[in-house]
Each structure stands twice: as structure tokens, then as C-alpha cells.
């Protein structure tokens, strides 16, 4: 109790002192990061909020032998995001996802997803909430452990939409249950091209395509096929089989796209 009183007295005194400082301050010294509540005025409200959190740390959870991914949104209270889909991707295996499907799990009520990963390796974790997605690169230690945070939103900003440069990430969902759909199938991203002679749009034919197991996978920049699937333009994602979704996508300036295919089982 005494400690709380001490803190309160300290904050009041600090607030008073800062008010004195404000009377001789230079308006040009505005620092948007110091404007804690983003109301365009650095004042006692910002100081009060900082005081309430003073001395605290962001402590990311860890677990023996596991890689732990914590998914947070600083735009809501509490910040933990439950049931976010999280994928742990080994970038070295992007060209062989058929034999090495991407590990996907969902966060618990503490916003935590855990993975069993190889030791001393680089990975990329991608997290999706209902309205945002982002990623973080990390390296496991000699025990396969890591603790990483993915931030999906900050106050005053729209949800984050970020993927590693050049990655087209595809998620196959069951159209009825909205859960991940797993099945062996072939797919082929095809560029939609305008034919000047016929004045019609065509999807450029492709030989082979990609063998997939469903779930989440990343279309790599396949230099061997000379198909830059992530170049700007309009693409259609064809999934061969029975009644499949064929969504179109447009990679952004960084060659990234988040493609969701709703498969009709």
C-alpha cells in the first residue's frame, strides 16, 4: 500500500514539474513517439500513462524445447490474440513443400502458439488474425527453442498486412467449416494477360504446376520454371480437381500476396 502511495506521489510531483517545463517548451520539439496516446499533444496524459507502466518489461513466454510465437494486437485490450493461425516456415524448404508441409497451429487464449523445430535454424513465422497478417524472422537455439512476437496492430493504425518480400502465401480453407483444408492436389498460378489481337484476356498456359498437400504453402520465386509468380499484375490461382475455388490475386510492390482459396469439399 505504501509503495502505491509513493508511486502516486511521485507521479503527481512529476506531472507538476512537467507542467512547469511546458510553459517554456519549444513546440517544434514534438516527438510523435513521445505522444503516447497519439492525440498530437505531449502532456500530462502521456506522462500518466507512462507512469502507470513504468518499470515494466515486455516478457515473452518461453517453453523448454519449443519455439514459442506470441501474437499480439496493441490496438485492443487485452493485446493477446486468441485463435490466430500461425505458420512456422523453413525458407530453405520452400521448394519441397510436398515432402515438408508447413507446420501450422493456432494460438491459445494467451496468444501463444508453440512449435517443435530443428535447432540452430532460421525460420519465418507468419500469423493471421481475422483482419491482419504479419511475420517475424527468428533463429532457434541449440535446443530448438525460440521466443518471438508478431504484432498485428497498433493504435492509430489499420491492421498490419505484411509478408516477407517476394512471398505469395496461399491458405486453403474448407468452404463449409472455414478450417484448413488438406488434400493432395495440383495447383498453378497463371498470369492474366491481355491479347491485343483478339482483345481478350487469357490466363497464360502453364505446364506442370505445383503439387501441394493443402493447408498453408508459399509459392516460391521459382527461378527454374522462370515464373516470377510474385511480379505485379493480375494472377489467377488455379487448383485442379473437382469444384475448387480459383481466386485472383495482385502482388503488391514488394511482390507479396496473401491468397485464400475456399475449397468446396
Amino acid at each position, binding site marked *: 500500500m505504501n509503495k502505491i502511495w509513493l508511486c502516486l506521489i511521485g507521479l503527481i510531483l512529476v506531472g507538476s514539474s512537467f507542467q512547469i517545463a511546458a510553459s517554456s517548451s519549444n513546440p517544434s520539439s514534438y516527438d510523435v513517439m513521445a505522444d503516447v496516446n497519439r492525440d498530437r499533444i505531449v502532456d500530462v496524459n502521456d506522462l500518466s500513462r507512462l507512469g502507470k507502466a513504468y518499470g515494466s518489461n*515486455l516478457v515473452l513466454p518461453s517453453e523448454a524445447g519449443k519455439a514459442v510465437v506470441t501474437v499480439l494486437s496493441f490496438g485492443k485490450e487485452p493485446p493477446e490474440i486468441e485463435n490466430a493461425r500461425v505458420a512456422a516456415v523453413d525458407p530453405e524448404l520452400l521448394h519441397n513443400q510436398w515432402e515438408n508441409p508447413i507446420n501450422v497451429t493456432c494460438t491459445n487464449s494467451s496468444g501463444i502458439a508453440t512449435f517443435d523445430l530443428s535447432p540452430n535454424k532460421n525460420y519465418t513465422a507468419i500469423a493471421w488474425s481475422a483482419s491482419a497478417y504479419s511475420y517475424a524472422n527468428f533463429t532457434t537455439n541449440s535446443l530448438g527453442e525460440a521466443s518471438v512476437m508478431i504484432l498485428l496492430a497498433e493504435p492509430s493504425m489499420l491492421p498490419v498486412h505484411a509478408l516477407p518480400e517476394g512471398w505469395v502465401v496461399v491458405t486453403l480453407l474448407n468452404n463449409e467449416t472455414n478450417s484448413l483444408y488438406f488434400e493432395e492436389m495440383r495447383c498453378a498460378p497463371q498470369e492474366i494477360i491481355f491479347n491485343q489481337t483478339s482483345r*481478350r484476356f487469357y490466363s497464360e498456359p502453364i505446364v506442370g504446376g505445383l503439387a501441394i498437400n493443402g493447408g498453408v504453402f508459399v509459392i516460391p520465386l521459382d527461378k527454374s520454371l522462370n515464373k516470377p509468380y510474385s511480379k505485379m499484375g493480375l494472377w489467377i490461382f488455379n487448383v485442379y480437381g473437382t469444384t475448387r475455388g480459383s481466386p485472383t490475386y495482385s502482388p503488391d510492390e514488394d511482390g507479396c500476396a496473401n491468397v485464400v482459396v475456399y475449397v468446396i469439399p
Partner: protein
Amino acid sequence: MKRAFAFMLCLFLLLVLVPRAVTNPDGFRYDPMADVNRDKTIDVHDLSRLGKAYGSTQTVPTQRGKTTIYVYQLETDPPEVENARIAIIDPDFGYPWYQACQIGYTDSFGLVNFILNPSKNYTAIAWSRTMYSYANFTTDLFGQGGVAIQLGSSRLPPNWVTITLINKSSGGLWQEPIAIASVGELVYAHPVFEIMWRSAVSASPFNGIFVIGSWDFLNPINEHGKSYCVFVDNPHGTLARPAYTPDENGNANVIAYV
């Protein structure tokens, strides 16, 4: 001098009093916004930075008879964004195909001035190399104002599609007249795409940026999950065929190289 004294006093008080209080494990939850320097610890460094800015306000400098746009970015030092492209959209001009009524670029202070009509509503859209954002604002009786645009996660007004034509040779905006620009929805009918025409506009003269607002619910051009193509022509032939797929907010930022 007075300010320095006050700042030192408050630092002293915080250093002496607050650490005693925070030993209580039940309180003082980490607040990311209070972590001013983003080092995952809320400590004297955050307080010091807040103290330096204490009492300041984000004021955009204004000039007589002009509207000043200030473009900045969080998490960068300095926050000002130089050479951002700004388009001013007059919502009363050209609806639903808004052509940018003025275009400008920010200076090294992240500032650019425009001469606008008094007491009018406008939208300013700012583009940096990788991001874009916007602000709605109203000029005062003298056409004067200061508007700040924060570039962060890219956003546009709901259901707006922006189209920027870039001259491939010069890298600047395409500013020659165009005869017609129309939008068609692409409907996949293997192996070709049928085009369902949605909208058309003539724009001459053209200044390189135009915006399509959502106005026709029978012929939308911004439905999430669908594909559209903009047909930009002039009397001599085809200029560009940029295609786009709107996001969940009905937005698309289309850049076409002519």
C-alpha cells in the same frame, strides 16, 4: 533553465520513488505505447524522451492563403517523409471519377503547400515509395489549413480505387490527355476472361492520378475477391491495361506504367 530544472527534478523523483513501487508484481502492466523508444522496457529512457517533447503539440506550419500538408511516419527518425506524392481530391469535382485537382511533392521537412478554395471539403492522399494514406479536411475562410498525414499501414477512403499512370520513359506522372478510361470486371471462363463493362469516363486534360469512388451498387468496381481491369486509351491506341483485385475494404491502389 527553468525547464531543465523541472526535468531534472522529475527524473530524480521518478528514479527514487517509482522503482520502489514497481516491485509489486501485481501492478504496472507493460503498455507498448508507453514504451516510447520501443526497447521492450519502460524506463528512464522513455521518460527522458517524453520529457524532451513535453508541452509540444503537432502543429503543421501554415502560410497565408495556403493549405499545408505534412507527411510523417512513425518509427523513423526523423519522421518527415520527403518527396511523397500528394493528390488533392475535390469530392464535388467529377464524381464518381475524381481527377486529382492538384498534385504536389513534399520537401525535406515533409511539407507541401496548395492553394485551395475557402470553406471546402477535400481529401488529400499521400504516397511514399511503399505506403500511402489519406486525410479528409476542410479549408477555412481563407483557404488556409494544416493537415498531417501519417504513413503507416496503407489505407484509402472506404471503397476508393486510386489509379496512377506513370510515364515509363520519364518515371514521372503521365500528364497527356487520355481519350477514355473504363473499368471492366474480369470473369473467368476457362481459358479466357470475359469482360463485363462497369464504368467509363473521358478525362482530358489528365494529370496522372484519378480516383474511382463507389457509387453504383449495380455495377460495382471494388468488390473484394473480384478482378477488374482499367482500360486506358488515347486516339492513337492503347496506353495501359492495369488490373486489380480490391481488398476487404473495397480499396485498390493501381499503378500503371504507360
